[in-house]
Structures are given as structure tokens and as C-alpha cells.
């Protein structure tokens, strides 16, 4: 046996084992053995085993009259075509023949599989079969071919346009069959998205999807006869159309209304969205009547048995409510929390209920909220108590009831959580109605009585300190309270300290306070000015001290005892611009996130990640490591800076030192590859100007650091941003 033969034998692969058995089966002289082998190959494939080595042998079985076998081989091809791109052309003949098969299922199967084989060589042979199937007499084949055009566009847009597939697709939109139309629409939308994010020549206007009223009328007719997916696509299209007059809008809305009864919540939601879009073109009277019709479909969204689907419904309802607050005013009961709801549903329902609350139903809602506050989940309890506060702030008539309910809750189950939340809520209520004497006398004693249950870890501790400064004369034991609080002063965070500083100053200035707290004030000011690290806090203490020691008697009072403007509402709302964006993106991910899509979907071509090869990935990993190391450096650097800055107060020697360190930092990173310089320019400029304000003489020093940093990588962006935050 010659050497060549030996090598060939070796290359032929194993002579036993599963792969060998399968290979033998695939080329067997018996039909049933071949089919059996194919089935086993597909089985292995679905289990995740790599059977790509059998490609040529599986391919031999593609030409068969057995539909089952054909489907299996096609399935295999779709999966592994990219592993043997050059062998794929051996399948072309069968594909082309199959697109002429008398059986429409086979024709559609063939063109679908051809589209799924994402190999350049295959595309070259797609012209004839694709144009033939696009004009097929069977709608099933046409609708499959329509999607295939979008796939082709994704692989090779130029060819798709030049061969006129895009134009034939556009023509197909007036097809008599609704399923074909919906698939064509879908394909056109896909192509449009790809076109926008591609770097194709935008001047060559493609007019991929032109919506005119004739098309819309046609779509409205199709709407009832489509599959669920088709309906969604058509609704999307109707939503993109701007009606020209109220007559058109009316027609569109009337045609969509029957869809509100559909069992699929996605269709219901899309229909609602589209109706709301066209609603604005209608007259006021018909608007209200249509809005009324929307309430029961909206309710149907949350009667879905799947909690996740309910959640999506609730998120969308919340956005709609903000635009049309009265749309569900009679449906409060539907949103009552069920004991079996998951927590995220309960919280979301609470959010909706406080928005639905009005003069007529707040009693009902307060009773419910009382129940929820006695539950065991802390998040639910705190949200319920907050909701009680929101109701009090929203409806002035409900205040007394709300406050009494809170008092009742504290009495019933006065644990730390409830007291903490209640105190916070009561403070908010006082901020809304600052002048009301009866309210103040009702609320403040409760807070004073329960203060001993709070510790500085509770968020509401800070509220109490604020209240002491705001209403000192209502607290009978104020001197005890103040002394008690001051004992813990050294454990406070800067926020609490700031709050305390304000309060103690206000208490001293308030002429209604009979006792003298100047000793506490003196101690506070000394403590902060001498031992405090926080610059803001220290500066604030200096300012107060100066103000108090000035000859003016009234000025400090005017400044420090000024009342805060009352709050309007504690219910979160969207900014009107964002609300409009969200309304147009209802029933998408944006409504669940509560953010417009441009904030989380980049306009970059989707192939961005695919194009990264292993070298780029390696480089990226390397950069990540560099970044981590640098972050550590930066932390050290932070500390240095703070110490330096505190000790020197503008002394030039120290800041020069600081700049040296900064230079070091940048020269380190200068070794990494250059990219992304444009965005960082502004950042470095900021730093530069910052240095100028710090110390004018150090400007020449800062110049080189800017140049260096421009040549460094985009990690520096982060570094710079961190630096900026620091300043």
C-alpha cells in the first residue's frame, strides 16, 4: 500500500464508532437504512452533537420523493450549510427542481430552505427559483417567498434590488390573499429596518414602504382574515399611517374595533394602540364614546391567567392612564390585589390603583390598602402605606381618613417598618398642606410618640429632623428630642448632618421657640467646621455661622425660615415628550421598560457583533483588563486628591503634584490602541477648564495631558468621566 493510500485512509476518518455507522447508513444501498440514518443524524443534531462531518453524505439524500426524508435533510442543511459552504451548490439542482414540484408544500419548503441557507454561493442560484415562487399560483408559496426576499436582502441588498425582487415584493402587496399581504408587509418592514441601519447609499431612494389610503383600505379588509401574526403586522402598519382627515380615521377605527374582542392580548393591545393613535383626528363626541369602548378590552388584558402577560398589560395601562386618566375610572375593583398574585403584579396594581383613585372610590381603596398593609411582604406593606399618602396628597377631601388610617395601622401593628413608612408619608402630607393647624396637631404628636422606635438607619429619621426644624413649637418635648438626636451626631451620614444643621439653625432663629438651644447650635457648628470632611457641609456651616453673626436680625430669618413650596403630587409621571414616545410604542418592550426605544436600542447595524473576529475579541479582553487595573489606580488617586485638596485650599504646589499624577495616568493608558477620539475631546476639554479654574499657572501642564489622552483608547472616556464626577 503506497504512502498516499495510507494517508487517504487515515483522512477518511474512523472505521468504527457512531459517526462511521451513520456514514455507512447514509450511503447504504437500502432505502430504509438511509432514512433511518438520517433520522438518527437529526436526533444527534437536536441533542447538540456536532454532526457536520456527515454533510456530504446527508446531502446525497436530498433528492428523494419521500417528503419526510426531504424535510429532515432540509433541516440538516439549514443547520450546517455554513460549515461546508462550497458543497452547498450540490443541493442547488434539487432546490430548483423542488420549486417546480406539483406539490405546493414542497415548493414552499424548497424556497424557504434556500433562503435559510446563508451562503453566498447559494444566493447566486436563487434568482430563478425566487422569482418563480414569488409569482406562484399558490398563496402559501407566495407568502413563503415574500419572507425569503427579506432574507436575501439581509445577505446581499444590492443583488436583491438589482434583480428586482424588491419591486416584485412591493407589487405583491396588492395580492388577493390576506396571508400573503401580511407576510409581504412583514418582509418590507424588515427590509426597511435593515436599509436604515445599513450603510447603503441613502440617496438612492428606495421608498420601501409607501402607505397610502388605498393600501390602508385594503389592509383593513384583510385584517379580519389573517392569522394572529398577520393581524399584528397589519395593525403595526395601520399605526404607522397618519390619517388625513376625520373620515379616514373614523373608518380605520371602526374597522379595528372588532379586533378588541380577540382572544390574543397582543392583538387587543395593538388594536388599542392603533385606535388611540387615530383617535385624535376624530371629533370630541365620538372620541369619548370610543374611549368608553376601550375600557373593557383594557380590563381583559389583566384577566389573562399568565402573570407575566398581566404585568405587560398593567405596564401599558399605566402609560395609557397617564394620557387618558378617566378611561378606567369605573374599573377600580378589577385592579384589587389577589393573594396569589406575584409581588411584581401587586406593586404594579397599586401603582395603577392610586392613579384611578377619585372622590367616589377612595373609601373603597383605603379599605383595600389597609388589608395590604397587614400583609407579610415588606415591599408590599411599604408601597401600600406610600399609596395611602399619595391618595391624601391627590385628594384633599381624603386627608383626615388617610391620616386616621395610618394612625390605626401604627396602633394595630406598629413595627419598625410601618412606623418608618408612616412617618415618611405623614411628613409628605404636611409638605402638601403646610399651613393646616388641625392637621399639624393631629400628626405631630403621633410622630413624637413613635420617634423612639426609629433609628438613624431609617429613611424617615431624616424627615423627623426636618419636622423639628419646621414645627418646633408643636413638639412639647423638643429639648429632649433634640438632645437625644444630637447624641448620635457622630454616626450620621452627611445627609443627616446637613439636615440636622439646618434644623438646629432654624430652631434657634424661630421666635416661637421659648427655650434656648444656642449651646447645641454652637456645638454643632464647631463640630462641623473643625472635624468635618465633607466640603459642602463645612461650607454650609461657615455660611450659617457668618449669617448668624451678622448685624442684621431679619435677613437670616428671611433666608433660613423660608417655607418650601408645597408639593403637588407624589405620583410619578412621565415627561410629556417621553409620554408621547411611549404612547406610540405601546405594546412593545418600551412600555414594559417605561423608556422610549431609542434609549435602549442602538441604531448600529445589527451585524456589529457578528463582525468581531477573534483578534478583536482578544483586544477587547485585554482592554477590559487594562481598564480594571486603571480603575484601581483611580481609586488610590481619589484619596490622594481629596487629602491634597482639603489640606491645601488652592495652594499651587499641591495641585501641580496632582497634575503630575494625572499625567502619569494618561501616559499609562497611552499604550493601548487609539480609537474613539472625537467623543472624548469634550471630556478632556472639561478637565482642562477645570484645571484652569483650579490653578491658572498649571495650564501648560494640562496641555500635554490633553494631547496624550486624545491618543489613548476609549477606556479613558470612563476614566475621564469618573474624574469629572469626582470634581
Amino acid at each position, binding site marked *: 500500500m503506497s504512502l498516499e*493510500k495510507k494517508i487517504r485512509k487515515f483522512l477518511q476518518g474512523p472505521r468504527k464508532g457512531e459517526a462511521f455507522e451513520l456514514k455507512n447508513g447514509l450511503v447504504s444501498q437500502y432505502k*430504509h437504512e438511509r432514512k433511518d440514518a438520517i433520522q438518527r443524524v437529526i436526533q444527534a443534531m437536536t441533542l447538540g452533537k456536532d454532526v457536520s462531518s456527515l454533510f456530504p453524505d446527508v446531502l446525497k439524500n436530498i433528492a428523494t420523493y419521500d417528503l419526510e426524508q426531504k424535510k429532515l435533510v432540509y433541516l440538516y442543511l439549514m443547520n450546517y450549510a455554513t460549515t461546508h459552504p462550497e458543497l452547498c451548490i450540490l443541493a442547488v439542482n434539487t432546490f430548483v427542481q423542488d420549486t417546480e414540484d406539483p406539490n405546493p408544500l414542497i415548493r414552499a419548503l424548497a424556497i424557504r430552505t434556500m433562503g435559510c441557507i446563508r451562503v453566498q454561493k447559494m444566493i447566486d442560484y436563487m434568482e430563478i427559483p425566487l422569482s418563480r415562487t414569488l409569482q406562484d399560483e399558490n398563496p402559501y408559496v407566495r407568502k413563503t417567498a415574500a419572507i425569503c426576499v427579506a432574507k436575501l436582502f439581509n445577505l446581499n441588498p444590492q443583488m436583491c434590488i438589482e434583480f428586482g425582487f424588491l419591486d416584485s415584493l412591493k407589487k405583491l402587496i396588492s395580492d388577493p390573499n390576506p396571508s400573503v399581504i401580511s407576510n409581504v408587509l412583514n418582509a418590507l418592514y424588515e427590509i426597511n429596518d435593515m436599509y436604515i441601519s445599513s450603510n447603503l447609499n441613502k440617496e438612492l431612494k428606495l421608498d420601501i414602504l409607501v402607505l397610502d389610503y388605498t393600501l390602508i383600505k385594503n389592509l383593513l379588509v384583510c385584517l379580519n382574515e389573517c392569522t394572529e401574526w398577520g393581524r399584528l403586522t397589519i395593525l403595526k402598519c395601520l399605526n404607522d399611517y397618519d390619517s388625513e382627515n376625520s373620515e379616514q380615521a373614523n373608518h380605520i377605527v371602526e374597522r379595528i374595533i372588532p379586533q378588541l374582542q380577540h382572544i390574543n392580548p397582543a392583538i387587543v393591545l395593538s388594536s388599542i394602540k392603533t385606535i388611540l393613535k387615530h383617535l385624535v383626528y376624530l371629533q370630541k363626541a365620538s372620541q369619548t364614546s370610543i374611549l368608553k369602548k376601550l375600557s373593557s378590552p383594557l380590563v381583559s388584558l389583566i384577566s389573562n391567567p399568565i402573570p407575566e402577560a398581566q404585568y405587560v398589560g398593567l405596564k401599558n395601562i399605566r402609560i395609557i392612564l397617564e394620557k387618558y386618566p378617566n378611561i378606567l375610572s369605573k374599573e377600580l375593583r378589577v385592579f384589587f390585589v389577589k393573594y396569589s398574585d406575584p409581588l411584581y403584579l401587586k406593586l404594579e396594581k397599586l401603582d395603577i390603583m392610586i392613579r384611578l383613585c377619585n372622590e367616589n372610590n377612595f373609601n373603597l381603596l383605603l379599605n383595600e390598602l389597609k388589608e395590604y398593609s397587614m400583609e407579610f411582604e415588606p415591599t408590599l406593606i411599604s408601597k401600600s402605606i406610600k399609596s395611602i399618602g399619595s391618595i391624601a396628597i391627590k385628594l384633599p377631601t381624603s386627608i383626615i381618613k388617610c391620616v386616621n388610617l395610618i394612625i390605626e395601622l401604627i396602633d394595630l401593628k406598629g413595627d419598625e417598618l410601618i412606623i418608618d413608612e408612616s412617618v415618611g408619608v405623614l411628613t409628605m402630607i404636611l409638605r402638601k398642606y403646610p399651613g393646616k393647624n388641625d392637621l399639624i396637631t393631629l400628626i405631630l404628636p403621633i410622630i413624637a410618640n413613635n420617634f423612639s422606635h426609629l433609628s438613624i438607619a431609617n429613611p424617615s429619621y431624616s424627615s423627623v429632623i426636618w419636622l423639628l426644624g419646621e414645627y418646633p413649637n408643636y413638639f412639647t418635648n423638643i429639648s429632649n428630642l433634640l438632645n437625644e438626636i444630637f447624641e448620635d451626631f457622630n454616626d450620621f451620614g452627611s445627609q443627616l448632618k446637613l439636615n440636622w444643621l439646618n434644623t438646629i439653625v432654624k430652631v434657634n432663629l424661630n421666635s416661637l421657640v421659648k427655650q434656648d438651644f444656642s449651646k447645641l447650635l454652637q456645638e454643632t457648628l464647631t463640630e462641623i467646621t473643625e472635624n468635618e470632611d465633607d466640603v459642602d457641609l463645612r461650607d454650609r456651616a461657615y455660611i450659617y455661622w457668618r449669617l448668624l453673626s451678622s448685624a442684621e436680625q431679619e435677613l437670616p430669618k428671611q433666608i433660613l425660615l423660608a417655607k418650601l413650596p408645597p408639593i403637588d403630587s407624589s405620583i410619578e409621571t412621565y415627561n410629556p415628550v417621553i409620554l408621547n414616545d411611549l404612547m406610540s410604542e405601546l405594546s412593545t418592550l418600551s412600555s414594559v421598560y417605561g423608556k422610549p426605544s431609542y434609549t435602549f436600542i442602538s441604531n448600529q447595524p445589527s451585524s456589529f457583533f457578528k463582525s468581531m473576529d477573534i483578534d478583536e475579541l482578544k483586544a477587547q479582553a485585554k482592554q477590559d483588563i487594562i481598564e480594571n487595573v486603571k480603575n484601581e489606580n483611580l481609586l488610590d488617586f481619589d484619596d490622594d486628591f481629596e487629602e491634597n485638596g482639603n489640606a491645601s485650599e488652592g495652594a499651587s504646589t499641591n495641585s501641580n503634584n496632582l497634575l503630575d499624577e494625572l499625567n502619569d495616568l494618561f501616559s499609562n493608558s497611552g499604550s493601548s490602541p487609539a480609537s474613539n477620539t472625537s467623543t472624548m475631546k469634550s471630556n478632556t476639554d472639561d478637565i482642562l477648564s477645570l484645571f484652569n479654574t483650579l490653578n491658572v499657572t498649571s495650564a501648560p501642564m494640562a496641555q500635554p495631558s490633553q494631547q496624550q489622552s486624545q491618543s489613548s483608547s476609549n477606556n479613558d472616556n470612563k476614566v475621564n468621566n469618573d474624574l469629572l464626577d469626582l470634581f
Partner: protein
Amino acid sequence: MGQTFSFANIFGKVWGTQKEIRILILGLDGAGKTTILYRLQMGEVVTTKPTIGFNVETLKYKNLTLNIWDLGGQTSIRPYWRCYYNNTAAVIFVVDSTDKDRIDIASKELHLMLKEEELLDSALLVFANKQDQPGAMTAAEVSQALNLTELKDRSWSIVASSALKGEGLTEGLDWLMDVIKEEQL
């Protein structure tokens, strides 16, 4: 799997009715391979396009089940012929008798193919096709041009044929069947 042990199967194996005999039809592009295949299978002339890939048809001939593979002859596909050599009982090599310019290329491809280890035991039938055309070389001329006489240790035959008229095909196939039956028994 159960099927494998059924009676019909065992009998099928014994009498050789189910066993398919693989035959390849090879040759340069435009020689008439696909036309021959469908002429043999359906008995009529079909309009063909260049085969990018392959065609397979099963036909019963004299109690044998033949699995006839017609591979595309274009330059780009010829390298992939070798994928199909395994288990092949016979090769039908089709030559366009009017194409005198490329007869050398055909000869080269033929001898290259016959050197393959997997085809050492396969019989060779050459069709000197397109005899209905004016100026076609005779079978003897084609045989000479292809250097068929050099072939040793192999049963081979050349038949003048016209796929369009259906001449010569059955004669060739009859010869092939005799050779195959001899080898199988």
C-alpha cells in the same frame, strides 16, 4: 428498526430485489447526462438546464433496482464527483461526440476518475452520445481519443448513442447489467 428483521426484508436481501445498485453518470457539461437519465427513467426527452448539483432516479431494470446518479459536469462541480464514488457498481461516462475540441479534457477527466481507489472494481460504460448530430465522431474514434484500450483489469464498453432518438441506450445498459450480475453472483 423492527423493519430490518422482518421477513420481507430478509427475502428482499436474499433475492436482491430491495438492494439498490449505484450507477454514476459522469461526463463534461453539455454531454447529455441528464437527458440520458430521464430517457432511461421515463422513456421520453425532457428539456434540461445545466445541472448544478445532481439528479438521482431509481429505476427497475431486468429485476434489478438501479439507483442512477447524474452529476453535474461543470468545471466547478467536477471536484465534488469524488464524494459519490463510494459503493459504486458502475460508471456511465457520457461524451459529446461532436465536441472535438474538448475530447482531450474528457479523456483527462475519465482517466483521473478511474485512478480513484473506490472505483477500482466498477465497470465502465462509455456513451458516444449525440450520434444524431452531423459531424459526430464514431464510437471507434471516440474510443481512440479517450485511450480506452489502455484500460486494464476493468470491464469496459463503448456504445454509440443518441439520447434524443433513444438509440444505443438499452444496448449499453444491457451490457452493463450482464457485467454487474456476473460480479454480484
